[in-house]
């Protein structure tokens, strides 16, 4: 039994607690974007020529593209010349180990509750930490290397494993895929890279913690996970940012490749600063996440709890290419105040006997807008494809909106697809029943919301589930009058 109430007790009354700024020396490049900035970023990272060329190609494509207008979100135009595309904590020399990491930085991550310190080894989670644009520390590298797993920053991977990076980068999300993916491909600064060799079951959870710190900077990380045949990995991603009055852009790309019988489980607790109650500040979270089940019996599972960001625009997707492959998407998206979320998934069934499952729970409060947008496509040759989708929305308050835009396309008669969606609110009678039992309104709302989201929460690894529940409770604050 999970300690829901204990968690709530701790957290009710607190607000966005990750809003501090770390006072740390950073190295930045000038604001704005042009070809020389792209070259500069590549040079700072001492990249091989193929990488630079790849970036330049993406940049050339990006300047010809237009920002997408179709999502159900509104925001003032982004001035892409007013963003710092590279900000890195300054380091005097190459680090030999965690002991040499700037103590300010370690303090930051301790405040965030992240165990990059060896002393927290007991939690058994290997962490890669990305601050602003660069990976600052990766733990448990050695232990992972013993079983052949590569877990490092993208920059290191480009230096040390160029053949793997070159083979897979852009193979799932092409640089031309969409506006923000193209931008990311041009200016991405770091991210995590993870390679699980054939037959290896990753012995611990791998985790990346993303943090935007520097003012006016954007974060453009790129994550690539490759699971070779019959391997397994569970990967966690967490995100926070300081409170600032200006909006900051986060345009990441995540690519997952699962070969025959491999399984990748990717969990996200996204808690970027959502802006204040009046909608000032907050992160624009425009992210492209996609996985491909290359081989037969491969499985990719996305779980996400989205409580942060002023605007979320993200559709973690699975291309089910291998026969008998499986794609899953479990999502809780909570919006409060003036937050906007347009999120969902795409399940593209190509192989035979492929299966997908979508469970999306949207919670809207305040004056927020929460949209589910999903696509289930069954191709001409996708014999015996199966999909089940459940999209539920819960409304708290009368000024928010819940929207459901599922697209279902079937081109083979053997497809079996079921989609269900409901929209409801927390009833007055439910609240009164709770109160008569001594549970006050705020706790009752949290209890009901947690119950509503349970099916998704159960998919998260334990450590994340607790954090995610706390987040839901915090994010709901002030949503009931």
């Amino acid at each position, binding site marked *: 039994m999970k300690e829901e109430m204990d968690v709530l007790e701790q957290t009710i009354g607190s607000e966005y607690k990750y809003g501090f700024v770390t006072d740390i020396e950073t190295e930045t490049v000038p604001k704005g974007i042009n070809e020389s900035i792209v070259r500069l970023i590549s040079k700072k990272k001492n990249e091989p020529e193929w990488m630079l060329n790849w970036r330049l190609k993406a940049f050339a494509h990006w300047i010809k593209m237009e920002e997408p207008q179709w999502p159900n979100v509104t925001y003032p135009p982004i001035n892409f010349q007013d963003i710092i595309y590279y900000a890195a904590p300054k380091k005097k020399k190459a680090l030999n180990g965690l002991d040499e990491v700037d103590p300010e930085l370690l303090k930051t991550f301790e405040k965030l509750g992240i165990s990059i310190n060896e002393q927290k080894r007991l939690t058994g989670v290997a962490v890669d930490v990305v601050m602003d644009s660069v990976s600052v520390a990766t733990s448990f590298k050695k232990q992972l290397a013993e079983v052949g797993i590569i877990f490092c920053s993208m920059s290191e991977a480009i230096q040390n494993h160029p053949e793997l990076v070159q083979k897979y980068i852009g193979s799932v999300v092409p640089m031309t895929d969409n506006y923000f993916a193209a931008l990311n491909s041009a200016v991405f600064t770091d991210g995590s890279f993870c390679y699980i060799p054939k037959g290896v079951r990753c012995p611990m959870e791998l985790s990346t913690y993303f943090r935007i710190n520097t003012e006016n900077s954007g974060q453009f990380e790129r994550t690539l996970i490759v699971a070779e045949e019959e391997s397994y990995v569970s990967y966690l991603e967490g995100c926070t940012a300081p409170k600032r009055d200006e909006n900051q852009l986060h345009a990441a790309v995540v690519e997952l490749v699962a070969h025959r019988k491999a399984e990748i489980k990717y969990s996200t607790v996204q808690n970027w600063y959502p802006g204040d109650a009046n909608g000032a500040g907050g992160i624009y979270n425009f992210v492209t996440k996609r996985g491909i089940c290359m081989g037969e019996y491969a499985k990719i599972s996305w779980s996400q709890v989205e409580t942060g960001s002023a605007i979320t625009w993200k559709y973690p997707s699975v291309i089910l290419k291998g026969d008998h492959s499986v794609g899953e998407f479990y999502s809780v998206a909570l919006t409060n105040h003036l937050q906007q979320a347009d999120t969902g998934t795409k399940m593209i069934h190509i192989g035979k006997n492929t299966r997908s499952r979508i469970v999306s729970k949207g919670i809207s409060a305040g004056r927020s807008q929460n949209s589910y947008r999903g696509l289930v496509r069954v191709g001409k040759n996708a014999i015996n494809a199966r999909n089940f989708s459940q999209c539920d929305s819960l409304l708290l308050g009368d000024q928010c909106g819940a929207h459901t835009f599922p*697209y279902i396309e079937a081109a*083979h008669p053997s497809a079996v697809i079921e*989609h269900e969606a409901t929209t409801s609110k927390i009833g007055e009678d439910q609240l009164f029943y709770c109160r008569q039992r001594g549970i006050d309104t705020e706790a009752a709302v949290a209890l009901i919301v947690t119950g509503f989201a349970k099916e998704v929460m159960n998919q998260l690894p334990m450590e994340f589930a607790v954090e995610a529940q706390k987040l839901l409770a915090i994010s709901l604050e002030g949503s009931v009058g």
Partner: protein
Amino acid sequence: MAILQTAYIEEKFDTLQSSHPNVLLNEVRQKGFQTYQNVGIPSYKNEEWRYTPVSNLFKQSYSFSEKVSTINQASVDAFRLPDSATANELVFVNGLYNPLLSNIRSAANEMVIISMEEAANDIRFSDILKEHLGKSSLYLQDGIHALNTSFINGGVFVYVPKKVQVALPLYIYHIADTVQNPVLAQPRSLIYLAESAELKLVETYKTAGSSDSFTNEVMEVVVAGNAVFEYYKLQNDIAVANQVNTTHIRQIGKSYVHTVVVTLDGGMVRNNTNIIMETPGNEAHMYGLYLLKGNTHADNHTLVDNREPHCFSNELYKGVMDDATTGVFSGKIYVRPQAQKINAYQSNKNILLSEKASVNTKPQLEIFADDVKCSHGCTIGRLDEEALFYLRSRGIDAAQAKAMLLQAFANDVIEKIKIESLREHIETLIVNRLSVQIS
């Protein structure tokens, strides 16, 4: 990108405008034409037309709004619906209302049926036209809809006065005469049910000739308080008969609307069925069946816009796609911020029978109010193998068993047809279809 044959449309428009001096209609047409010119024929990039390539229909030119036709009473006889002798029958030929071929059997005080031009010049009705004609443009802003509005001409106005419950159903036959050349027919009608009025309306479509027909129809219906409107549409035309049909129903008083749309045959068929609930407490039931064979492409777009509180809507659309057919369903439920206590349900169920058939469905909920109960569900699947086996184990052969199950599947919609003779007629069509299909 194919070159669309639309240049002649402008010329036709100018001719029409100069030949019909009524100010009111001229203005509505002018507005429509402006929209048409601004937005043009929608491509697949237009979200509302994503799955229906309507621009393909403009790869050829059509003759339209032309009165020359050989259609006579005898040719209408071939298309009549059952019990037509006890119905009011309106006949449109190539999109133009033809009073001579029509039979109005209800008394004049029960129902007024006049041409749009007459209505615009009649002081009893000109205000109604002014207020309601073209209101659907607020919701449908694409070039196809605008094209119809640009050519409002030879349309019909139907008025049911207060408290009149019209006993006889109103049948509307749309006939496209394509013996000479391809025809673009653009029928337009405005139906007004005053307070406590009741009307049952049935539309059906036939192409006489073997050239392509393209019927681009707009029917606007206004339903006042306490009125009851039943609407049935039967589409069972030939394979070169294409249609875009808009039925835009506005409930301007607490009223009851019931619609059933049945698509059995045709070329590219698109139905927009919109229900706009403009006052509190409205109720609407919407049903649809698309049972397709050959190459038919049937697209049903529905919209229920809950603008006010305490409205109820229930929607069920079912489809069976065989051969190389395509079924499309897009259902939108809007609940506006002030529209609390809404109950809105929507369900779309599809069966694919063939490797070449496909279905695209897009059920959407857009909810801006909190005290609502809304749900939608959609399924795509095959016939229930268990049920099939069960029937076969009782000695029924596979083909027969399949037909029985498909009939049962269709029946959930067909049983909602409240005009008995029409229901039986459609049942027979379906039984024949299924038995032919199976052998």
